[in-house]
């Protein structure tokens, strides 16, 4: 790795520092961005000429299913997703295979080629945390972290039902440290527990089986715990009723649950002085909003429900969404929401897998193919784009495909093209079912996003939302030396030449990670090992002791021994823990 680097004369897009296409030099020293280089540092620096090119911070993906048991089951159950997509080994890179669910090596290379350097795994079932870390450790190049699935956890449901939020918070803090997880994920709260009995919930206020707790109570409780601890990221929600016509209403109401929760980020990190405050402002981050923006009442009168979600997001400051777009083509749907996947299985008859994770959560997997000729799929395509184009403030949105649910992450360049070019959208309208036009507002939207806005949606916004903007998602001094150079001259950028946009975002001219070139024009140049980010929240000792006594007692219901539960240190190659709530603040009685 070169010790120092200068990226000369590029057009820089750095939204957290409000730099919109200025010609600027970027300096990197010891893997970090610095203000300037002088003397020997400058003399020995590797110079990259970015004249006539676009320079952005390294891409950050805040929601992608790339590691762990369900991802791997998705690989195993789909040989047809592998044999036509094989990657040969080279002197530098590992062989691999897969289209919608690539093997870990290919995932790392493909993200790096597109200019991404940081990716967060969207769901870690606690019992499968070891497996998840094994795959994250084997993923080349990328810095990673993952969110722990806690929305149907027996301990949390019990403590919240009993009104003992301190105990629940102590449990969350201990679980984060135990499994080396980064944030709190909540999937179909109260519903996944019911799925153990073949049922689901369909409203926010119905008590679930046995625990008698409602989705509203779980969402509010976890959001409160999140802020009591001061976690880097807000609660990350996969709302109820996902994938059913009319589900936008419950999604909107779920977002409203955390409106009164005060945002309190209490991480022991060195914040950089960026122009825009790098601290998150949201108390809830809604995952793959597209799947929760279905309108209509049945598949017959199915329509986009994006407007309901967008109106709410536009008038609220405590919400961020990622869109979870559908770019058409093969996908593998995988989620902790077992009943949602079973519903899709009944609709399609495709290959299906389901799993119950003991006292914690569950999951479902199904092969899927989004077709342009299919009316519902065409509307889903439109919804995914509406969600980005209709929210006025791009800082409230993040671009994803909920990989591999809407489609693989390798389709991001196509997705960027649609939101940058009306002409590209019109070309797709001409190919897909007319419901896309008739049952969404996408056809009437003229907005074409700029490179600056793309840098928000793919860098600054995800970084700020997950609380990593102290080091990712911007190019100010002190940030990690992660830089992407795209071969676009912004002064000659033509949104109507849309195939060129897709090509340009597919293969970055340079992807630089920690000051070293990892990919250049589609070729992998070096394969460093990424870091693993995780949160280490701290809680009052007494409460923790009491909480642990209860956990040990209940461990008799686990098939796993208590000693084998935690993820050992050796599972992490480059640990990058974030101390949370330290020094300990009085959380009791807050």
């Amino acid at each position, binding site marked *: 790795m070169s010790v120092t680097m200068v990226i000369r004369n590029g057009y820089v897009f750095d939204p957290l520092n409000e730099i919109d296409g200025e010609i600027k030099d970027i300096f990197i020293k010891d893997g970090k961005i610095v203000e300037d280089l002088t003397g020997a540092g400058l003399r020995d620096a590797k110079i990259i000429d970015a004249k006539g090119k676009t320079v952005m911070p390294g891409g950050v993906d805040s929601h992608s299913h790339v590691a762990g048991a369900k991802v791997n089951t998705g690989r195993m*159950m*789909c*040989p*047809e*997703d592998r*044999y036509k997509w094989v990657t040969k080994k080279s002197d530098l890179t590992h062989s691999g295979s897969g289209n919608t669910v690539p093997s870990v090596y290919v995932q790392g290379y493909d993200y790096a080629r597109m200019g991404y350097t940081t990716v967060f795994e969207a769901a870690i079932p606690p019992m499968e945390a070891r497996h998840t870390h094994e795959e994250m450790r084997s993923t080349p190049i990328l810095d990673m972290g993952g969110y722990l699935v806690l929305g149907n956890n027996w301990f949390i449901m019990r403590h919240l039902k009993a009104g003992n939020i301190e105990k629940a918070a102590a449990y969350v803090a201990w679980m984060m440290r135990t499994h080396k997880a980064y944030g709190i994920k909540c999937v179909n709260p109260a519903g996944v527990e019911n799925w153990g009995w073949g049922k689901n919930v369909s409203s926010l206020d119905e008590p679930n089986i046995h625990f008698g707790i409602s989705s509203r109570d779980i969402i509010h409780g976890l959001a409160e715990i999140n802020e009591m601890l001061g976690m880097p990221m807000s609660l990350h929600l996969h709302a109820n009723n996902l994938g059913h016509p009319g589900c936008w209403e419950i999604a909107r109401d779920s977002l409203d649950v955390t409106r009164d929760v005060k945002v309190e980020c209490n991480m022991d990190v060195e914040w950089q002085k960026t122009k825009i405050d790098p601290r998150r402002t949201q108390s809830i981050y809604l995952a793959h909003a597209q799947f929760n923006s279905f309108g209509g009442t049945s598949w017959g009168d199915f329509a986009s429900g994006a407007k309901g979600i967008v109106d709410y997001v536009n008038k609220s400051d405590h919400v961020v969404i990622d869109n979870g777009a559908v770019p058409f083509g093969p996908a593998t749907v995988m989620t902790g929401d077992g009943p949602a996947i079973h519903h899709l299985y009944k609709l399609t*008859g495709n*290959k299906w897998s389901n799993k119950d994770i003991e006292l914690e959560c569950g999951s479902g997997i199904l092969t899927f193919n989004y077709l342009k000729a299919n009316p519902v799929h065409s509307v889903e395509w439109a919804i995914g784009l509406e969600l980005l184009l209709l929210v006025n403030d791009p800082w409230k949105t993040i671009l994803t495909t909920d990989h591999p649910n809407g489609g693989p992450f390798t389709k991001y360049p196509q997705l960027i093209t649609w939101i940058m070019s009306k002409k590209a959208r019109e070309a797709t309208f001409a190919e897909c079912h007319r419901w896309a036009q008739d049952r969404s507002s996408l056809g009437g939207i003229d907005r074409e996003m700029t490179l600056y806005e793309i840098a928000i949606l793919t860098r600054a916004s995800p970084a700020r939302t997950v609380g990593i903007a102290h080091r990712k998602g911007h190019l100010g001094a002190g940030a990690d030396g992660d830089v992407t150079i795209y071969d676009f001259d912004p002064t000659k950028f033509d949104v109507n030449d849309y195939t060129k946009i897709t090509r340009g975002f597919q293969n970055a001219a340079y992807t630089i990670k920690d000051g070293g070139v990892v990919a250049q024009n589609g070729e992998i140049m070096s394969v460093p090992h990424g870091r693993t980010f995780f949160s280490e929240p701290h809680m009052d000792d007494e409460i923790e002791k009491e909480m642990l006594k209860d956990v040990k007692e209940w461990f008799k219901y686990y098939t796993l021994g208590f000693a084998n539960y935690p993820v050992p240190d050796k599972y992490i190659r480059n640990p990058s823990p974030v101390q949370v709530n330290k020094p300990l603040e009085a959380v009791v009685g807050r």
Partner: protein
Amino acid sequence: MSEVILRPKGSIDIMVEAEVINPDIFAGKTTSEIEQLIVWQGSKQLPLSEFFDVEGSAGSTAADTKIIVKGDVPRVKHIGHGMKAGEIVIEGSSGMHVGSEMIGGSILVKGNAGSWAGMEMKGGTLHIVGNAGDHVGCAYRGSWRGMNGGKILIDGNARSQLGGGMSGGEIHVGGSVENFAGIRMNSGLIVVKGDAIRAVGAQMSGGLFVVGGKIRQLSPGFEYAGTEKNPKVGETVISGEFMKFAGDYALSKTPKGILYASKEANEEV
């Protein structure tokens, strides 16, 4: 039409992956260029001339190119894989995957063909004079999207899972088949002149399946729908008296698959 003759050199131990034996790839190439085309054998990449003597030269286009393989090549896989035009004649038996994913042109195998012949084929004609292995015209493992166009003719017998996941095109078998022929087919036509063992058309949701001989064990999800004399199947009329079945009700409540079975050969059904 220009001809390229490939003469196998002795026997092959580890199977060779030779999707380069394809008129699209040969077109416009000289003899020596064809000799230098790369094939995989295990983990090694070797020139085609390692396994074949090459004579003649290709036409300027694929349509103008005929490849003749003089002899048996049961350990050479993927001949004509994905070919779009032109002609291949194998004057002996071929290995696995002959004509898999082919789009156009024609392949004639004068001997037997290995498994996966015409896998996920989209167009063209594949004629096997001898017997064929398993998975003819079938979807690859894990997938239910099999051949969707073109025509496969087998004069002899085929083994199991013929036309699995078929969604278009035609397969005609002169002899008999074994298990799971037409499993999961949703469109297209399969005609088997001889017998079938069991699970014919299992989980079919559409398409047409004709068995001229005996079905040893009919799937339980098929419902008897009367007897027909000389039924018309696509363009052609099949002579004889046939029992007509609709199915497979094991898969859905409204399947559109039709299965004809010879009345004479299946009297006890």
